[in-house]
């Protein structure tokens, strides 16, 4: 167990026992999927209308590429089911806007694209090969950030990477998808890690798991016992342990400089799901067309960890899990701390969807906030060592220069401050406003 | 150039008009003001000395002392108009003393002590304890008069001020000799005496040999060091040099200096102490 602790953080009620013991179930093929052209950070995909004639009426097969972008920071999207393209146009997106998407009606046959075949033995692949396979498979960070994985595997020449961390912290309350993946796809994770180590030429692999998942820790440790360049690191349970900078600090003792990427300190980290996807892409040739997510919360009738095809509508997933209870008041895509509340369940599951959470009136806080009593609990809970109350106050007064002086831009919106605030002030929301305004002014 | 000339001229004219106006008003009001001030002062004198017929004013170091006579030309007493440094600025007051050197009354003219705390100096309760005290009395806090708790600075300042004033009246105006210790009349020996100081007792040891004050030592004190150094060893040296207990304590850490004098006085009032190791003191 790591003896290093990051500063701040909170201990919310984890509620993981609802689903942590439930094995991953495969959801049957949906009737219809909606595949948005942007499921990652970076340039959105362009529809492959010219070359592959993807248009209304086109028959597509599983794994067939639907959209791509030549930009480096971008990731292609593939057809998750076989069937007919029935619509191309704007569709609801979990981010709260409408985004160009391809709708496919299933033909029920689940026919796979002929081009899909295993890439062969890892030993025979070059670094370039691995990067190409990862890119072509459309793999992005499955923890939620959806940063294209191949970009992280291609560091600049002058920044050698010596450690790869697999993030199995899963610090968000309720979510257990990563937990189950670690238990059920342990071998694939380790294979994925090996592929990454090779692609980066890194010497050490660390698998970080929060100590509230002892079974996953044990499973991992057993598997890597033989490997001398891979170790499992038990992380103290504290939110947001899974945040990149906190994880790196606890697992390696290295501090990522403010405003910089982990590669600055020679570290790259990937989610466990990403490792599994990389393993599947190399060993089976399979592009990223499905993922595991946790459907949970008091509002879900039959909570479960389900493996679904990307593009499946959240409504269908919820139906599969027994539907919503009457008392459901809030539907969240992602975890309760950083997830996005949805006004409408008619949105597709995308690459970054780690969970669907339905909260009932008992869990949802609706009352007005009181004035700040300057208790400074937000200051002591902030893992980035910021002063959330001061940023929020500056933002409220429209003084964004002052907000920037309080390092508003370093906030990664973990939500600890809003969580802990006894006055129930929406601190994160104010900080988001400040960040957006500061960025807008900077780009001018 | 012409502009500046015009501007200056305007200012000069305005100033001249203003000055002449003020002169006019001054000439009217000044006699009235003077007359009123005299009247006020005389009223105060009358209050203390109802039999007053005339008075003679003396100024000593900026303080005013009025020697009061009755119709027969007999001296009735003295009223002093003096000031002392209080907690918050100067307290100025009249101190009336009869011809025997006993205090008749105190009248606070002006002060800026804290209302509700320091202004107890204006109350009869506080003032009455001085009535009848003469300059032979010690007039020291805790001996024959008391400061008021919570307002020790204001009342303490008054006590010290009154003691100084009455000593001055006695010596300079009434020409009395303060009862003094003639060292030649005191049995040789070592004397010890202590008085209450700022944070605790202040004790002195005095050695008298062959009718001469040989030495004065402060053997124990808890004074505020910064003030104490102004008084020690200066005051003991003066006592030895002048062979006089009541030396001038006006300079330096007045409070500490006065305490040393008071302690010496106390020591000489009592008998010589016998030291355990004997002998030494009489050699």
């Amino acid at each position: 167990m790591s003896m290093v602790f990051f500063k701040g953080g909170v201990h919310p009620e984890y509620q993981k026992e609802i689903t942590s013991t439930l094995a991953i179930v495969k959801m049957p093929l949906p009737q219809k999927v909606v595949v948005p052209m942007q499921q990652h950070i970076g340039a959105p995909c362009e529809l492959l209308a010219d070359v592959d004639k993807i248009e209304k009426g086109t028959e597509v097969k599983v794994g067939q590429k639907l959209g791509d972008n030549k930009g480096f920071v971008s990731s292609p999207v593939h057809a998750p089911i076989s069937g007919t393209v029935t619509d191309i146009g704007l569709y609801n997106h979990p981010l709260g806007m409408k985004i160009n998407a391809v709708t496919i009606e299933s033909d029920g046959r689940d026919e796979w694209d002929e081009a899909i075949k295993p890439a062969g033995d890892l030993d025979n692949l070059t670094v370039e090969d691995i990067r190409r396979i990862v890119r072509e498979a459309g793999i992005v960070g499955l923890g939620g950030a959806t940063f294209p994985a191949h970009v992280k595997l291609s560091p600049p020449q002058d920044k050698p990477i010596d450690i790869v961390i697999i993030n199995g912290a899963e610090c968000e309350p309720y979510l257990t998808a990563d937990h189950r993946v670690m238990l059920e796809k342990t071998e694939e994770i380790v294979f994925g890690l090996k592929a990454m180590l090779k692609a980066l030429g890194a010497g050490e692999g660390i698998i970080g798991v929060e100590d509230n998942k002892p079974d996953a820790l044990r499973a991992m440790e057993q598997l890597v016992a033989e490997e001398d360049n891979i170790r499992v690191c038990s992380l103290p349970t504290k939110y947001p342990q899974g945040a990149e900078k906190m994880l790196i600090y606890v697992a390696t003792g290295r501090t990522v400089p403010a405003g910089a990427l982990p590669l600055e300190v020679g570290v790259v980290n990937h989610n466990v799901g990403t490792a599994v996807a990389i393993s599947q892409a190399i060993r089976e040739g399979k592009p990223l067309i499905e993922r595991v997510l946790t459907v949970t919360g008091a509002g879900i009738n039959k909570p479960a960890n389900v493996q679904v095809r990307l593009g499946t509508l959240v409504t269908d997933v919820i139906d599969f899990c027994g539907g919503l209870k009457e008392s459901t008041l809030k539907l969240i895509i992602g975890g309760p701390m950083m997830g996005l509340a949805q006004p409408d369940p008619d949105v597709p599951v995308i690459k970054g969807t780690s969970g669907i959470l339905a909260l009932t009136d008992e869990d949802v806080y609706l009352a007005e906030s009181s004035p700040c009593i300057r208790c400074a609990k937000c200051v002591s809970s902030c893992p980035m060592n910021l002063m959330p109350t001061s940023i929020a106050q500056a933002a409220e007064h429209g003084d964004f220069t002052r907000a920037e002086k309080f390092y508003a831009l370093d906030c990664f919106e973990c939500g600890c401050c809003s969580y802990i605030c006894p006055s129930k002030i929406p601190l994160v929301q104010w900080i988001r406003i400040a960040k957006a305004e500061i960025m807008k002014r900077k780009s001018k | 150039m012409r502009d500046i000339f015009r501007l200056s001229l305007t200012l000069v004219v305005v100033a001249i008009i203003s000055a002449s106006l003020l002169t006019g008003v001054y000439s009217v009001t000044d006699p009235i003001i003077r007359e009123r001030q005299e009247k006020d002062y005389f009223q105060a004198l009358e209050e203390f000395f109802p039999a007053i017929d005339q008075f003679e004013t003396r100024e000593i170091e900026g303080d005013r002392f009025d020697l009061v006579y009755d119709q027969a030309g007999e001296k009735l007493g003295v009223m002093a108009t003096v000031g002392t440094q209080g907690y918050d600025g100067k307290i100025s007051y009249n101190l009336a003393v009869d011809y025997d050197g006993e205090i008749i009354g105190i009248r606070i003219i002006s002060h800026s002590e804290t209302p509700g705390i320091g202004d107890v100096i204006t109350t009869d309760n506080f003032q009455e304890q001085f009535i009848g005290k003469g300059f032979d009395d010690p007039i020291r806090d805790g001996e024959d008069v008391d400061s008021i708790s919570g307002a020790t600075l204001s009342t303490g300042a008054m006590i010290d001020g009154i003691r100084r004033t009455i000593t001055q009246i006695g010596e300079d105006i009434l020409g009395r000799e303060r009862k003094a210790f003639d060292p030649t009349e005191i049995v040789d020996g070592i004397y010890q005496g202590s008085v209450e100081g700022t944070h605790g007792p202040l004790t002195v040891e005095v050695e008298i040999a062959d009718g001469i004050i040989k030495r004065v030592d402060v053997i124990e004190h808890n004074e505020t060091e910064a003030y104490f150094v102004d008084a020690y060893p200066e005051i003991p040296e003066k006592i030895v040099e002048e062979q006089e207990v009541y030396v001038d304590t006006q300079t330096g850490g007045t409070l500490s200096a006065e305490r040393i004098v008071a302690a010496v006085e106390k020591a000489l009032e009592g008998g010589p102490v016998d030291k355990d190791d004997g002998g030494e003191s009489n050699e």
Partner: protein
Amino acid sequence: MIIIEEKLVVSSSPHMRSVESIQSVMTDVLIALFPAALMAVLLFGYRALITMVISIITAMLIEAVWRRKRDLFSDGSAAVTGLLLALTLPAAVPWWLVVVGSASAIIIGKQVFGGIGYNIFNPALVGRAILVVSWGGHMAGDIWPSPQPFAFGIDVSTVTGATALAAPEIAMTFSFSELFIGNIPGSLGETSALALLIGGIWLVYKGHIDYRIPGGFIATVFVLGAAFGGGFYGNQLMTGLFHVVAGGVVIAAIYMATDFVTTPVTPLGRLIFGIGCGLITMLIRLWGTLPEGVTFAILIMNAATPIIDNFTIPRQFGGVNKSA
């Protein structure tokens, strides 16, 4: 900001909130003050109880009327202010004095600034300061009612004694255990360091107070007391300890200097605040004209809070010192 669209609620993340609220925090503070209040009743009898009840009820009533709310307890901050004020008063003060003090604490100390969260000075101490300035005679200075342990019905105002801080020779008349347990003349709640520490431990355990403020405060008082206190009471270290347990340092350090609203929010700022309070307290005690200085020490440091906050902005995680 909460938008209810049809049935589903949409709001900004996070979607979980801790159960802690202003009310629960204030309730915890009241619980923490209970040992001190109990001790006050045990030592000073029914007069202590009456003073505390009047003070709390006045504070809550005034606050409820001012805010036009029917809820008397509301967020609990008025009750805390009322109790804290009562604990700083002498054991036997006239009832009207308590009412005026409690009302001024709420009105002038808090509500005129805009209510909870906006006040600059600790309301209870504003109330106390106003009482001291207005009715110095009742508020004691050197002379306080002496405790009559376990004599509930006795009017304690009849027997008075000097505070241990008045002079070293008076301090010497109290044993250290008396000073620690609280069987000494002083204000209702300040005498028993033991009861206050019990409450303080509870507050630290609940995470409501930052150890830096009481730590800095008490440590500074101890160090300055040991260095400049004159070395009575046994030796230098005991003098330092004496300055901590005699008078109001413990209650001030744990309950008043830690008042959320009026103290800095940055960790370093809190340390500076605590040390500043200790420094001013000892300046007043050792070289000033009052026997005790905690009230004014905290009020002065309250005024300095925005400046302290401004100069102690912590560096963000991974931040580099610009001067380096």
